[in-house]
């Protein structure tokens, strides 16, 4: 099933408003139900690339999502289909209660009350947050906030999920819980991270970015064996070896 392209990026370049170059000549194709990890040091342009997937940022070049070109007239449709989860859940969650936040997307899509309730319930259940509907966002722990942020997008039934550092700021347990929850999501996923376990456990393919340019594009298991690349990106080679062995079992 490697024929169904859901994301096509063609010669994408982007400069920040102050003129600093952020992305240079990026080509990327993602197929349906694939999960890819975007890895790279801080400032490599990972998040910037992610924001192009739903038209939050628009640079030079062509970005096509599910056959739709990212341009003004398609934005509404594209944003329905690409669920973008921001790095900081405080930005993502702006409603007084968890229910309101998760319902925001489905309500904007014009669904009726019953369907909205069903979607909210299902999304919260998938994230292991059953019964959190009435809670105030500011009373949640960081891990819970991260999962609510994911639920807000899951409730929209997007075909593509774009996650920006989903495990950033979490303790090891919260990290593990979140990885396990994301593993349950069948959709196509693009995950920006600098956490090797996130990339390995969630994605079969890794795309490396260096200074706004696309570097290697390889299966994550090959990355685990590539000592040179691991060293360049500051990953622990012994840990990678251990993960490789575990994955083979």
């Amino acid at each position, binding site marked *: 099933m490697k024929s169904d392209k859901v994301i096509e990026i063609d010669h994408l370049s982007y400069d920040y408003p102050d003129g600093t170059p952020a992305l240079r000549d990026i080509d990327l194709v993602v197929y349906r139900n694939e999960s890819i990890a975007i890895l790279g040091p801080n400032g490599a342009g990972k998040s910037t690339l992610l*924001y192009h997937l*739903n038209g*939050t940022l628009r640079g030079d070049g062509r970005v096509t999502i599910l056959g739709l070109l990212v341009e003004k007239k398609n934005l*509404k449709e594209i*944003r*329905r289909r*690409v*669920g*973008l989860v*921001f790095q*900081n859940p*405080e*930005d*993502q*969650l*702006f*409603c*007084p*209660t968890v*229910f*309101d936040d998760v*319902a*925001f*997307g489905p*309500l*904007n*899509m014009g669904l009726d*009350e019953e369907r909205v309730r069903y979607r909210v319930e299902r999304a919260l259940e998938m994230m292991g947050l059953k019964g959190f509907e009435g809670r*105030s*966002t*500011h*009373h949640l722990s960081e891990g819970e906030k991260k999962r609510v942020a994911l639920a*807000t*997008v899951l409730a*929209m039934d997007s075909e593509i999920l774009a996650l920006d550092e989903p495990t950033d700021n979490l303790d090891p347990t919260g990290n593990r819980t979140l990885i396990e929850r994301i593993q349950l999501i069948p959709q196509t996923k693009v995950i920006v991270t600098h956490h090797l376990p996130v990339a390995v456990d969630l994605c079969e393919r890794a795309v490396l970015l260096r200074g706004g340019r696309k570097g290697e594009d390889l299966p994550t298991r090959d990355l685990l064996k590539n000592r040179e690349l691991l060293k360049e990106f500051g990953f622990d080679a012994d840990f990678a070896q251990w993960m490789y062995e575990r994955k083979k079992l």
Partner: protein
Amino acid sequence: MRHAFLDHHSSAESPIHHLDARAKIIVFFTFILIGVSSPPTSLLLFSLLILVLIGIALFAKLPLGHLAKKILIILPFLLVVAISIPFMKKDGIGGGYNLGFGGLSVSQSGLWILWNVVIKSSLGVFSIILLSSTTSFPKLINGMERLGSPKIFTILASFMYRYSFILIDEMQRMKRARDSRCFGGRWFWQSRVIGHMVGTLFLRSFHRGERVYLAMLSRGYDGTMPETTASRFGLGEILFLSISPILLFLRIYLR
């Protein structure tokens, strides 16, 4: 960090807590209206109003001590303004003290004005505290909206509620960072640093606003907030609402 300075006790369980927010808003505002519109001499009416409010507080299982403390917080501000009035008015002398060097006298109408201010403001504050202690802020906003308050106000209020906590956290973090780097020195230096902090807070809030807007757009926001649904009116609400006409009746016939 957790805060609940706005709606302490609002998540407790009681029949009053479960009522639709609209009913509670209407009833507590009736209390305020009737309190404010009554002449200060109708002591019986005021005592009745306070008794009913205490009754509601007990029924809602709210600790009276906590409520009293909250009301006391308001009183100093009020007294500072009101306490001087009896000394200003110069008509019927209500009483006097001889302090050894001439006298200090209080006027009768001045005393009435003081009483007027004290009883009405405490009544109003008591009603509002009861309302906010039995209704969570999100429900309160939803109730206001369904009672016809303009949407722009309710949206603004709900964003303010959500982000005030984040702003407070951010300010506390900045303060800690500042203090752990041996903040001190002369006032000129201090005021400069505080000025920078306020500026930074503003810039951060501004950028956050931008990111929140993007997050909203990503979930299909098109300029109108979607309607959220809430509870319905039942027997309890109608019973509770009946307090309003009774109060109105008392206001008219009780002098």
